[in-house]
């Protein structure tokens, strides 16, 4: 098994709906992406408040992101992830902390809320894990972790996802 992590901390969000992480599988026959867990938290605001979060797919007009190279969870794995750092979310890429959403339609898979002082952790059971298939067209579906509403405090956010290439 080849598992990877996209995670960041101490980040400042744009004051708008924000795609926190966006991972877009490469074209077939590259591997599918199976998501093992998602988490979001922050360390700036001690005031209890609920915050919406979504897991979405998107096939076009991807967000403008900060490029991010997935880290290997199995440190002895000789191979890097097929997803490479990119700021525009194309096939085979990973990015974080969107500065512009660019208007692409988001299809919601999971919608939930969490309290900002406690953070949110979603660890789906094996039957509930989302698998995004390797893309077969030029406008493939990528998966994003998304805040549909800007939080009250924008600083010191941390979030991430672990995924497996299958």
């Amino acid at each position: 098994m080849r598992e990877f992590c996209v995670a960041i901390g101490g980040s400042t969000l744009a004051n708008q709906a924000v795609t926190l992480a966006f991972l877009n599988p490469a074209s077939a026959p590259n591997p599918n992406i199976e998501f093992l867990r998602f988490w979001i938290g922050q360390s700036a605001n001690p005031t209890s408040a609920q915050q919406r979060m979504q897991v979405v797919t998107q096939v076009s007009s991807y967000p403008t992101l900060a490029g991010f190279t997935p880290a290997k969870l199995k440190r002895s794995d000789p191979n890097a992830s097929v997803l490479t750092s990119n700021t525009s979310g194309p096939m085979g890429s990973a990015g974080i902390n969107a500065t512009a959403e660019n208007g692409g339609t988001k299809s919601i898979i999971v919608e939930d809320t969490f309290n900002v002082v406690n953070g949110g952790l979603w660890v789906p059971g094996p039957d509930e894990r989302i698998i995004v298939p390797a893309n077969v067209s030029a406008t493939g579906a990528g998966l994003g972790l998304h805040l549909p509403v800007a939080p009250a405090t924008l600083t010191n956010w941390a979030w991430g996802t672990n995924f497996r290439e299958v």
Partner: protein
Amino acid sequence: MREFATSGPAFDWMLKAKEQLYETEAYVSVPPALIITDARGDVWTLGFQYGPAPRGEFAFQVLRNGHLVGEFASRIEYRRGQIKIFTERGYKCWNGRSFT
């Protein structure tokens, strides 16, 4: 004229500023919460590796301030100011040094 006690400070603002601590509300559970901050300021969460679990559930490493405590649990709960974990052997409570 008001007299101030000389045996000790009377007001918080006279004291050296302390670290800001947030204590998680009672009955918060990880998951779905990401962390629990207890009264000592210790942060509890679940790690990535799974291990022996209660029947029908999945258990992950229990982390205290990012360090392993040697337990696998399917959830961490904060009840009556006490950290509890649900393990394959049932509930265990943190006594300040280990889970019993």
